[in-house]
């Protein structure tokens, strides 16, 4: 069993190595075989492991090797598979496999075909290491690995300088979060001499009391890392620009998996976060604020991928909100359903873009429902799930779990619930506006070709998942109850509100209101289709992501630039230059005494001997 566990991240890693070494020599079919096959095999093994873990109700461990052994610290490379890791692993490998299949056709003909699959395989391997790690240091290795792959893949079409700039922006902004993360890890390591998850968390629970300074500090630092990687406030500016990468990349990395790493981190270390209520409260507030800001920004976007990017930021805000109200299972549930419908939406958008000669501006799309009916259906299903239309979509169940838990929670719970409901309204509004503008109305760009099976099959699978995926966790108040997910996760999270418990009476009323909000949004989207919702200059402000880029440019980039230019003369260099110049001038001065004239020299000899004589005579 544990060799199967090792094989799961190892297969994509080997695939990446093979593709990198043979990128010039392998035929496209061979590239597809290696790239898609490795992830497919991984997914199959992941399925087997999942069955075993849920049956045996026991985690699987696989120790790799002893990495560091110092006097005050040691770290072991160990893979650990429990309920939480199972869910993450299944999402990564299954959706990863579908997206690999999709890319086989989407990227066909590109000069970097093998390179693409190599990076994508490497990404899957790194993400698997991240979720399977039993040691926070190994988790950080996976964390950095996915950051690297994100950079490589955003800037995949490196011949355009903007893609490189977007990749750098993503890397630098997440790096800010990563720095906070590693400082938090170092604090933990210094205190407990180990970073193994079980060891550090047990140590923390024993040594630190809830609400004291140390756990709060560490949790805020870990939160900083999560905020960076998951593109939440204030580090959310990189995700919309990351859409410069190919669409499969956006689907896999920036929707389904990498950006959820922050959520996974907080869920995994929730025992530590429970010792720092301030940090958890901050998580919830950040989630609520982000989901609203991103939803507002999504309303005014014109590029179809940017709408989906802001939508991702907003939905991850929901997950952070869930974490803030201790609804760990709810957060992971939403993570899973979000992976389904967001990947579906991105892949569908990619199919549209492909058929329209790489056109991404929604203002130039329209009336595509008639010419691309299958794609229309997929996009519609995805939008419905995103908007959490009641009862039939997966998104509904996960969002209800979160909002229910928010309502039940003390403190800010009700406030967060209001933000969540407002967000649901805005979500339905923007996504259905996008849907109607792309698919209804007059045909503005003529699509060409047809969508191949390698694109259609993943879309179909994801569409089904986006509809029925929610049925794995139905709260008891809605008739029959299914609690597949919470049972899987209960060994990790325990039970409680948002973790599979029965909602109270007041909560049912709240649930009703929350269900109606997306319908209201849909109605507004239908009635206002084709018209502008907000005045033009507001729309520009919203389209720029509410001015964050400009703010950061003025706050951070401009002073740095100024500093760079101010230091250009290079003070220390100047010191040495001046010294050298002074020497040269002194030399010039002294050279004046070398006239070359004999009389002049004779005179100085005489003067010198006079001086010597004076000394001799007077002493």
């Amino acid at each position, binding site marked *: 069993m544990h060799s199967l566990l090792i094989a799961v991240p190892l297969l994509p890693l080997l695939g990446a190595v093979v593709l990198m070494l043979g990128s010039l020599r392998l035929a496209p079919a061979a590239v597809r075989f290696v790239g898609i096959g490795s992830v497919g095999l991984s997914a199959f093994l992941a399925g087997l492991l999942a069955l075993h873990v849920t049956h045996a109700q026991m985690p699987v461990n696989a120790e790799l090797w002893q990495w560091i052994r110092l006097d005050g610290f040691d770290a072991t490379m160990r893979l650990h598979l429990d309920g939480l890791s199972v869910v993450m692993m299944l999402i990564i490998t299954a959706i990863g496999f579908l997206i690999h299949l999709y890319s086989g056709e989407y990227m066909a003909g590109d000069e970097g075909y093998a390179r693409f699959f190599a990076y994508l395989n490497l990404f899957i391997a790194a993400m698997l290491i991240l979720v399977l790690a039993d040691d926070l240091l190994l988790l950080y290795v996976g964390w950095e690995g996915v950051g690297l792959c994100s950079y490589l893949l955003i800037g995949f079409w490196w011949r355009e300088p903007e893609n490189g700039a977007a990749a750098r922006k993503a890397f630098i902004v997440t790096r800010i979060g990563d720095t906070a993360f590693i400082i938090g890890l170092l604090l933990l390591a210094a205190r407990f001499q180990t970073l193994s998850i079980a060891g550090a968390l047990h140590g923390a629970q024993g040594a630190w009391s809830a609400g004291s300074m140390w756990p709060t500090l560490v949790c805020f630092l870990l939160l900083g890392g999560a905020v960076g990687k998951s593109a939440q406030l204030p580090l959310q500016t990189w995700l919309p620009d990351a859409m410069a990468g190919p669409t499969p990349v956006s689907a896999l990395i920036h929707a389904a998996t990498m950006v959820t790493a922050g959520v996974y981190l907080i869920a995994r270390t929730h025992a530590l976060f429970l010792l720092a209520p301030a940090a958890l409260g901050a998580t919830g507030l950040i989630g609520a604020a982000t989901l609203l800001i991103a939803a507002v920004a999504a309303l005014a976007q014109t590029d179809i991928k940017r709408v989906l990017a802001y939508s991702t930021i907003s939905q991850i805000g929901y997950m952070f909100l869930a974490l803030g109200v201790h609804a760990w299972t709810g957060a992971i549930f939403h993570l899973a359903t979000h992976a389904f419908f967001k990947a579906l939406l991105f892949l569908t958008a990619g199919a549209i873009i492909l058929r329209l000669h790489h056109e991404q501006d929604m203002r130039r799309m329209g009336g595509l429902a008639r010419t691309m009916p299958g794609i229309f259906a997929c996009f519609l299903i995805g939008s419905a799930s995103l908007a959490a239309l009641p009862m039939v979509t997966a998104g509904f169940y996960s969002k209800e779990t979160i909002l229910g838990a928010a309502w039940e929670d003390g403190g800010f719970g009700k406030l967060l619930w209001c933000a969540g409901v407002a967000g649901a309204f805005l979500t339905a509004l923007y996504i259905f506006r996008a849907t109607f503008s792309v698919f209804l109305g007059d045909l503005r760009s003529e699509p060409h070709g047809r969508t191949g099976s390698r694109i259609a099959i993943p879309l179909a699978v994801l569409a089904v998942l986006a509809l029925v995926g929610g049925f794995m966790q139905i709260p008891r108040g809605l008739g029959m109850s299914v609690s597949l997910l919470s049972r899987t996760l209960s060994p990790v999270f325990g039970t409680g509100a948002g973790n599979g418990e029965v909602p109270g009476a007041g909560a049912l009323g709240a649930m009703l209101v929350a269900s109606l909000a997306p319908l209201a949004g849909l109605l507004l989207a239908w009635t206002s289709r084709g018209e502008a919702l907000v005045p033009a200059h507001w729309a520009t402000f919203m389209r720029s992501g509410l001015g964050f880029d400009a703010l950061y440019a003025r706050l951070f980039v401009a002073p740095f630039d100024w500093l760079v230019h101010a230091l250009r003369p290079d003070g220390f260099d100047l010191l040495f230059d001046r010294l050298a110049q002074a020497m040269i001038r002194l030399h010039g001065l002294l050279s004046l005494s070398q006239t070359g004239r004999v009389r002049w020299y004779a*005179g100085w000899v*005489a*003067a010198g001997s*006079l001086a010597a*004589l*004076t000394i*001799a*005579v007077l002493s």
Partner: protein
Amino acid sequence: MSGLNPLFTVASIIAVASTAMVITRTVAVHALLYLVVSLLAIAVIFATLGAPFAAALEIIIYAGAIMILFIFVVMMLNLDRGDAARESRWLSPQSWAGPAILAGLMVAELIYGGLRDGGIGQAGLVVGPSAIGRELYGPYILAAELASMLLLAGLVSAYHLGRAIGARQE
């Protein structure tokens, strides 16, 4: 001062005066003639000091050979009135102010240093050629040999340079 030996006094005055004239003439031959007079006066001084051999050598070699060399060269160079005018131009007040000061300081130093320790007694002897000869070929034989080598070197180089001059003028 030397009221004791009027010959010395007169000779020294002549020497100083003619040396002053040497360095301020514009015509080269005039300067050389004054220099000869100065050398003769110094020969007299040597005689009053009881050094007849030195006096004879002064006249024969210094005034008789070296000065003749100078005069020959001056005649070869064919210096004329134009040169004299140039010399007087070069002898402007700026050019002799600095050296005069320096020389004056030098004199003051030497006098102060030389005369500071008060009077020294005199031997009053005449040291003739035979004494010199005995010294020269006794303890100072090495010096004599070295001097002769020096003169040989001077002879060879003068001959060599003279040939180059001769070659150039053809």
